[in-house]
């Protein structure tokens, strides 16, 4: 098929990328080498037309794109919203992103969309449901998806296995890949009182197709224990950079996103975060077999 799209850069490289915000468009186009790819939130490009979609079409000709869903509600107890899944298919069909990812979380109940990534108990019933939903997504889109580890603030009494055992079984049964959010590991490990390095040690890094880095805020719970909140509103903190290096040493380089969705900084600040990730990626050991 020889059309204008055949020259588009498709594969998301082992470089730093950023979550695209319209206010950064000029900065990105002035210095396109400063990032290797962009990520978009699928739901922001589901209108019928207009400027956002035109900007994305323009960027797609120049950059590999990762498409990140925030509204599928894969962890929901109810069925997936097929209207929404079809909208996603329409977007993925024209965008042809190098990667597609969604969250291990739920966000819809009855007909309500709650606009947050809500936690699921780690049980066999949840595994079965999540596998069924991922199969439906992958069958509809005709491609593999990556499932992202969550940042969590609570635990469930009924959970009977670790998050990693949960993710391993889901990936093995559905054939999905994993998106490893290093900041989420740090946030959840702090909030749930386990070792973030231990989590990385146990994580099936061979299945990881993408890494995320982002900023969080610090609070405390009712008992004065540290409670970190995944806000995507600040620079990545040094302990998360250190955990990222630890991850790269085990996994080898992977496409790495800087997520900054609230209190959005100037392009220069975001580009500096991307440059820091790129330096660590260049220094990482060669890619391990996936």
């Amino acid at each position: 098929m020889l059309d204008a799209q055949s020259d588009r850069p498709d594969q998301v490289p082992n470089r730093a990328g950023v979550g695209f915000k319209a206010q950064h468009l000029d900065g990105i186009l002035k210095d396109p080498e400063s990032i290797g790819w962009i990520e978009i939130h699928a739901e922001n490009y589901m209108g019928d037309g207009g400027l956002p979609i035109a900007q994305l079409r323009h960027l797609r000709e120049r950059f590999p794109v990762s498409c990140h869903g925030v509204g599928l509600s894969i962890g929901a107890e109810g069925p997936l919203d097929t209207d929404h899944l079809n909208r996603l298919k329409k977007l993925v069909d024209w965008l042809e992103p190098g990667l597609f990812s969604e969250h291990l979380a739920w966000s819809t109940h009855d007909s309500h969309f709650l606009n947050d990534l809500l936690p699921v108990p780690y049980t066999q019933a949840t595994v079965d449901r999540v596998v069924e939903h991922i199969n439906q997504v992958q069958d509809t889109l005709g491609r593999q998806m990556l499932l992202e580890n969550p940042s969590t603030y609570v635990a469930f009494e009924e959970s009977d296995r670790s998050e990693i055992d949960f993710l391993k079984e889901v990936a093995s049964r559905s054939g999905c890949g994993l998106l490893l959010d290093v900041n989420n590991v740090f946030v959840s490990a702090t909030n749930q009182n386990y070792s973030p390095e231990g989590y990385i040690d146990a994580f099936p890094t061979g299945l990881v197709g993408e890494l995320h880095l982002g900023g969080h805020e610090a609070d405390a719970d009712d008992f004065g224990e540290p409670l970190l909140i995944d806000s995507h509103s600040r620079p990545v903190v040094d302990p998360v950079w250190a955990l990222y290096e630890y991850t790269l040493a085990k996994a080898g380089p992977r496409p790495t996103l800087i997520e900054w969705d609230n209190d959005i900084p100037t392009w220069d600040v975001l580009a500096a975060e991307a440059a820091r990730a790129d330096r660590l990626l260049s220094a990482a050991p060669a890619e391990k077999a996936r």
Partner: protein
Amino acid sequence: MSTQPRFAEALLDPEQPVPDGVVDPQGRPAGKRFNVYRNNVVVSLIDAMETAFPVMRKLIGAENFRNLAGLYVRQHPPSSPLLMFYGADFPAFLDSFAPLAHVPYLPDMARLELARRHAYHAADAAPVAADALSRIAPDRLMQLRLTLAPAMQILPSRYPVVGIWEYNMVPDAPHPPAEAQIALVTRLAFDLQMQTVSPAMASFLNALHQGAPLDTAFDSASAQDSAFDLTAGIVLLLQSDLIVEIHL
């Protein structure tokens, strides 16, 4: 065990207890930890309302708007993950919101802000060439049906909604006139345009949009105003990139 119905209800209702079985890592009740989710849901939706209704926010003040939006998001959580269209029930919510009844134009301002957002995200549609109508035989002109741009939005109001919008958003805009206004929102490429139109012009555009031929649309406008000028109507259609298809 089904946990999500109770979890979801407690998220939107701060009076409800934290659901049973939701705990901290030591197995103690989650307490404040659960409130992180409550806060994320409500604050993110209030933020979405702020983005969607900037003039409303200016009219009643930033803090009042966040309080008002907080009431709205708990009563009308989104029904779709497409937050670009969130707030569709906001005008009706304001219609019956007694504490703001003394600012009677607020519901129409919310309608106008929604209409602008729908125009902004509407499908792209290339307009016909400027001379497309002049190339049609004069005796067939009045039988034409036109497909109008999907971005077109017409909002009639008893209040000067366009004037109030401009007064709040455009530097040095004049004080709004004391009159009823009909807003016409259109798009030139990706840029929103807004103007006021007469009731006759609104009838003309609405009739065309509903598929009526030009003569019927003209009759409908003339019924509103016997002096309605068809040429002015056609000039408006062309200058605003409103004609995307001509059906002979």
